[in-house]
């Protein structure tokens, strides 16, 4: 029990003293996950909007597929991206394996289906409401797509935050493609896993606290955005 108390003590010290190692890990985590979320949103929102606006054969299949891929196990994504990026793989020449870029790729693959499927849900509801209005104005497909994305802005931001929540907390994919190399590819989740297994609980605890704070912040933002949208009847 005394050991745990001591671990907490050290953890808080690390947090207060702005420990460089600790915060460089936090920084890399945020950098990787935020990059992945931005890329996933750029791709996923367009996919979601396209699945809403265009009618084409295979559309339903894609909707089901993206929904199914929402729950993709991170380790499997890690494995797939590993195979693609490893020296023998199709993109091996790029030498990306065990770099932060590889981790961004893996997280992007992990959450793009989630972003696409959830944004399609948000946008389809709006599409039902606005379809006739847009058609009566004779909006082009591109104009419809842009207008829908804007009408869905509040919902889409919360979709992005959901993606971020999944990215920042996953460990399997980044562990495989990043390798958890000190000062290079070590991020919060992989560091927690490693430090805990080594028995150095203090750093793990400090990172765990930050991770919890981040997840609280994300969820609070979602709630605040929802409230704001509801207030203007934009939800």
């Amino acid at each position, binding site marked *: 029990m005394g050991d745990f108390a001591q671990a907490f003590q050290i953890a808080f010290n690390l947090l207060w003293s702005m420990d460089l190692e600790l915060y460089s890990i936090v920084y890399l985590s945020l950098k990787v996950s935020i990059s992945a979320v931005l890329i996933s949103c750029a791709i996923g929102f367009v996919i979601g909007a396209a699945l809403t606006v265009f009618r084409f054969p295979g559309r339903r299949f894609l909707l089901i597929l993206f929904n199914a891929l929402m729950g993709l196990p991170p380790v499997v994504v890690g494995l797939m991206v590993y195979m693609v990026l490893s020296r023998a793989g199709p993109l091996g020449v790029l030498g990306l394996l065990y770099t932060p870029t590889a981790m961004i790729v893996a997280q992007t693959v992990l959450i793009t289906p989630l972003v696409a499927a959830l944004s399609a849900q948000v946008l389809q509801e709006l599409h039902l*409401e606005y379809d006739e209005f847009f*058609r*009566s104005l004779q909006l082009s497909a591109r104009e419809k797509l842009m207008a829908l994305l804007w009408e869905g802005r509040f919902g889409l931001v919360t979709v992005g935050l959901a993606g971020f929540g999944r990215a920042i907390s996953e460990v399997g994919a980044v562990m495989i493609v990043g390798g958890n190399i000190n000062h290079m590819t070590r991020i919060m989740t992989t560091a927690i896993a490693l430090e805990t297994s080594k028995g150095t609980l203090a750093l793990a605890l400090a990172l765990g606290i930050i991770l919890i704070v981040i997840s609280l912040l994300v969820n609070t933002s979602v709630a605040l955005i929802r409230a704001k949208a509801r207030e203007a009847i934009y939800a």
Partner: protein
Amino acid sequence: MLEQTNRTVKSTFARRCKPLQFEDVVLEINGITLIHQINCTLEASGKTVVLGPNGAGKSLFLRLMTGLMEPTNGSITGGLEEQEGALTSYQDNGAPCMSLVFQNPIMLRRTAYENIAFVLRHHRVPKLEIAGKVAAALSIARLETRAQVPARRLSGGEQQRLALARTLIINPHALLLDEPTASLDPLSTSIVEDMIEQADGMGTKIVFVTHDIKQAKRMADDILFIHEGRVLAHKSKRDFFKDPGSKQAQAYLDGRVLEK
């Protein structure tokens, strides 16, 4: 004299639309026939009022006119159809356009101001003119003070007026209105009626659905009576109110249940 001036204005503007002809138009949805063999011709100007009980098919009729729905059978010709290219032009410098104001106003999740600006931008109105035009539209609808309010927060009647102003500002050549005054107070009703009369004065073809018989008497040039998906009468206002032409129309006007 006033009448005279109106007429001349009308004839200079009412040139773009051709009469709109419905020939044997049938609409089926999921195997149910909702519109049965409509045959009628709507003139290219003037105010046509569409009357008929709930569920008669009036809203469907307007949707068919604008092309939002395709007839299962028959054809709708004339109107704006012979114009090349998009029907989405603005003012008098492009192709004409036909605009529908829906029975339930459809508001974007933006401010009242932005709802109007959206339509103007879509019609490629130069950036510099947008603020002025939006202000004009808001003032026609008497919504100047509500410009920055989220449109979906406006009251039902305010939304209805905004929807109409948003449509009128692009100066459509045919304006279709689905019960534009259904939920309006007397003042709003008269504002909307003025807006309609003004558009009519500029030569805009007006087709509107109403259940307000007095309003039909006040405003219509001709009356189209729809009952269970059929056009039972299409007459000038005077002829229609003198002789509705069917026991269904008579019952509708009297507010009676039709004895079978």
